[in-house]
């Protein structure tokens, strides 16, 4: 029987009622008395020298209150990269300054170089048009290979080339890997591009700053996945506002997918303007601005080689990747192509030797940073594509080549050659589940049906792993992280027995308010409705690093469990005192404290009340009140894994690809709310289909973004995707967190793209087209051109 509340139940989401009735409170919905508006002047060229900016006409425009340029922020600190990367030669990465507003040079189309504050949005935008900027256009650095080869044209004049770092992982393994390739019976080589994407949460970024001239307190309402991290970056690095004088509130946030982790210059501008004017200052990003200012994702160019024996046993893998960092280092941008990518290159396989080389490259494009999956989709795509190609070259079944190379279920904990220790897993189990639910046995008959309709049908697989629950501080510290990645929670039991849980996680669609309440409800035996989850406000919540990297439940949820454990422990002491028993005899079950072996019992509510009305209370050993906090730093990452099967139909006349069936069999460890987990997978899979078939940021030779609106950037829409089959019944619980959970937020985006591309290649090859690879997105024109090319070559 499915449970109807607590852990394992598909509790309906409590947050839905406000969202469904128009009562959500997103940043753009918040208005403060006397607020004014800021609009930004953004570069229309990809690379240019700012000779002069004349703001005098703009300053005279109706309603204009202030105009800012980069000059006004030169004294401020630089918005930092969160991870130092050490290059193969031992040098640390190059970290050019990232100013609040561009100064000296503009470095990408959309780079903001001035800001106007006015009484209305329209007045601010009108005045931006009146700014006279003399910007001398320079050649744009765009193509990564040329940017690496030629350092005469540089994105940052103060560093001597366009290479941020040249990273080897693990450098000490390199010689052994090369030697294995020398003697390998078979080598499969694939060059591929992981296409640049725009994350596109449906809520554009927004910020509203308030400054109290009497107290010198700042409040920033902003679209953030991690308000404490924003506060830290703004306080300690960029603006120097004392941390205790800055409150960051991330109210309802309409999706993030990584793009709202980062601190952006616009946030500093609204804060500075609010201080200068003594009035609240608001900015709401237009979608067309978002396309040229939100951090992009992916954008890797990779050569991958897989060495095998003739039976398809993996012997070694090596890669060379150019990772586009864009014009400036965004906060996670150096970690994404390195530690979130290179460490995953073993996948679920026992490949004994792996070596990864990544060069981070500056270009005159929008900064690139973590986007749903962040590094792990890039790793998975390479691995699963090269395996697909290898199996075709060796004539081995796609499922069998994966299965025979899986780390076996009795090999855990398993140390990979790229620095991780997987705690648990059973990759054969998810693969079997995929085979069953995806009815792979019936594929050939479905192929025949498609063929009768004139369509080419293909099936493709992906068996993937990821590292989630970011992150063990001791590990990331060794790897160059400048912060700890633990999390915090406070459980406050009110006198009347209901509960406020303050969490450092931030929900921007994940449903934490529901899920965390399920956990606490189960632990304390009280109804979910008596538990409130409070998040997104640095003035209420002790601390937290926010939500990304599928960490909310595994890390922040564990902090909640630990704080709740402390509550139970304290309650036991109180109960022992009141029932005149020894603490060790107190049993807590179903919300009642009982003296073992007796009928003496007190409810949780009674004990909570007595903590606040301590008339019969062990005051000599316990403080009154019932509130506990916990910080939790995980011992290891968590390692969700899964097996995906995708079926496509290709129209040979047009090259159009339709995903006609998709099966995802995942192992997320224990699952708290199955409905929410399935929803996370649905969303991730469709973002993965989006990457595989539709989405790409395209720049022309001058660095102009040609895909700057929903007319040109192809988001997956309702009729682009089928219903999905998702399953999470294979569960190998995480061994090092008390809930046994692994995280599910990024799985779909990680596992899906290679499954889709493999399916298309399968369809084309079965249709007689000798096509080994097509780069994503597999748009009709690309697929059609590849087919035409293959046909011509055959003739």
């Amino acid at each position: 029987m499915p449970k109807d509340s607590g852990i394992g139940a598909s509790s309906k989401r409590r947050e839905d009622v406000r969202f469904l009735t128009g009562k959500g409170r997103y940043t753009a919905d918040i208005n403060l008395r006397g607020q004014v508006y800021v609009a930004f002047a953004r570069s229309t060229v990809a690379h240019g020298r700012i000779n002069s900016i004349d703001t005098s006409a703009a300053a005279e425009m109706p309603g204009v209150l202030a105009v800012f340029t980069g000059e006004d922020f030169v004294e401020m600190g630089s918005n930092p990269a969160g991870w130092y990367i050490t290059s193969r030669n031992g040098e640390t990465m190059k970290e050019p300054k990232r100013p609040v507003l561009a100064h000296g040079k503009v470095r990408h189309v959309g780079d903001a170089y001035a800001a106007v504050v006015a009484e209305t949005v329209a007045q601010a935008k009108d005045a931006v048009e009146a700014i006279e900027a003399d910007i001398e256009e320079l050649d744009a650095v765009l193509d990564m290979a040329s940017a690496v080869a030629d350092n005469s044209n540089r994105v940052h004049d103060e560093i001597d080339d366009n290479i941020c770092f040249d990273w080897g992982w693990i450098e000490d393994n390199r010689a052994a890997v090369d030697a294995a390739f020398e003697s390998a019976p078979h080598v499969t080589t694939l060059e591929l591009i992981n296409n640049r994407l725009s994350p596109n949460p449906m809520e554009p970024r927004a910020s509203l700053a308030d400054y109290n001239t009497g107290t010198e307190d700042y409040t920033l309402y902003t679209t953030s996945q991690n308000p404490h991290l924003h506060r830290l970056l703004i306080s300690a690095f960029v603006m120097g506002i004392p941390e205790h004088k800055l409150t960051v509130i991330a109210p309802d946030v309409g999706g993030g997918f990584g793009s709202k982790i980062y601190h952006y210059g616009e946030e500093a501008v609204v804060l500075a303007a609010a201080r200068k004017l003594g009035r609240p200052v608001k900015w709401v990003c237009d979608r067309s601005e978002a396309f040229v200012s939100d951090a992009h994702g992916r954008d890797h160019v990779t050569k991958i080689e897989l060495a095998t024996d003739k039976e398809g046993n993996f012997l070694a893998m090596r890669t060379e990747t150019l990772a586009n960092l864009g014009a400036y280092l965004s906060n996670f941008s150096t970690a994404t192509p390195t530690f979130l990518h290179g460490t995953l290159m073993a996948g679920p396989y026992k490949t004994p030797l792996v070596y990864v080389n990544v060069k981070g490259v500056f270009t005159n494009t929008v900064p690139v940073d973590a986007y749903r999956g962040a590094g792990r989709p890039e790793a998975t795509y390479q691995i699963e594509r090269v395996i697909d190609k290898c199996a075709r070259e060796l004539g081995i079944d796609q499922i069998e080549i994966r299965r025979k190379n899986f780390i076996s279920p009795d090999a855990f904990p398993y140390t990979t050659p790229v620095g991780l220790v997987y705690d648990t897993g059973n990759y054969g189990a998810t693969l079997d589940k995929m085979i069953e639910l995806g009815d792979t046995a019936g594929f050939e008959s479905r192929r025949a049906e498609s063929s009768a309709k004139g369509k080419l049908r293909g099936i493709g697989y992906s068996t993937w792993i990821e590292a989630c629950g970011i992150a063990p501080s001791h590990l990331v510290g060794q790897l160059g992280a400048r912060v700890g990645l633990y999390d915090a929670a406070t459980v406050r039991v009110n006198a009347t027995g209901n509960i406020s849980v303050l969490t450092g996680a931030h929900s921007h669609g994940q449903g934490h308010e529901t899920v965390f309440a399920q956990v606490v409800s189960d632990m304390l035996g009280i109804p979910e409705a008596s538990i409130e989850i409070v998040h997104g406000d640095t003035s209420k919540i002790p601390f937290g690093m926010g939500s990304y990297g599928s960490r909310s439940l595994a890390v922040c949820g564990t902090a909640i469990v630990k704080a709740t454990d402390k509550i139970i422990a304290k309650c036991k002491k109180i109960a022992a005192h009141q029932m005149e028993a020894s603490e060790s005899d107190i049993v807590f079950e179903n919300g009642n404290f009982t003296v073992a072996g007796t009928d003496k019992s007190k409810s949780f509510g009674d004990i909570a009340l007595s903590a606040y009305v301590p008339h019969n209370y062990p005051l000599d050993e316990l403080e009154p009140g019932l509130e506990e906090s916990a910080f939790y730093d995980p011992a290891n990452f968590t390692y969700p894994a899964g097996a995906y099967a995708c079926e496509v139909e290709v129209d040979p006349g047009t090259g159009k690809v339709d995903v006609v069936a998709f099966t995802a069999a995942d192992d997320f460890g224990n699952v708290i709310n199955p409905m929410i987990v399935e929803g996370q997978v649905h969303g991730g899979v469709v973002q993965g289909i989006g990457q595989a078939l539709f989405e790409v940021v395209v720049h022309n030779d001058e660095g102009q973004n040609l895909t700057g609106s929903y007319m040109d950037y192809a988001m997956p829409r309702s009729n682009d995707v089928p219903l999905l089959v998702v399953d999470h019944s294979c569960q190998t619980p995480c061994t090092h967190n008390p809930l046994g959970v692994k995280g599910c937020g990024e799985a779909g985006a990680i596992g899906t793209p290679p499954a889709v591309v493999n399916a298309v290649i399968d369809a084309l090859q079965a249709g007689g087209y000798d096509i080994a690879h097509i780069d994503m997105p597999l748009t009709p024109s690309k697929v059609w051109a590849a087919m035409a090319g293959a046909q011509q070559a055959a003739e």
Partner: protein
Amino acid sequence: MPEIEMTVNGKPMSGTVEGRTLLSDFLRDMLGLTGTHIGCDTAQCGACTVHLDGRQVKSCNVFAMDAAGAEVTTIEGMANADGSLGAIQAAFQTHHGLQCGFCTPGMVMAAAGLLKENPAPTEAEIRAHLEGNICRCTGYHNIVKAIQAAAAELGAKPIAAE
């Protein structure tokens, strides 16, 4: 600047607008009905969907002045008279047809528009109707399920699941 009047969610409303004021901005900024969301600037995302004289429109694509005298329904007008969730809203909750909630008002208004015209849509008809509404979170799966369930609930003949 002209003063306009319209009926919003059954109540008479008025406000002063510029010629360029969009209906979406009028609803959000003048009337405080912030359930209508703005997700794009090219009339592509559908987050701003409302009903204008019974017709489903993108309110970012209508000048407020052109809606003068009209009847407008927004997400704030979709609950039952007693404040409980209407059938479509309830189905979205039951079937987890929303995550971040940002596209949701537009999705609910689009679903209402569809079910008015076609009380028993097929999966394909639902997907076709939602073409102008982008959701980045749900992969549409549960939105389709929710609309199928709402259609069944609203008394149309039930639609076979999956």
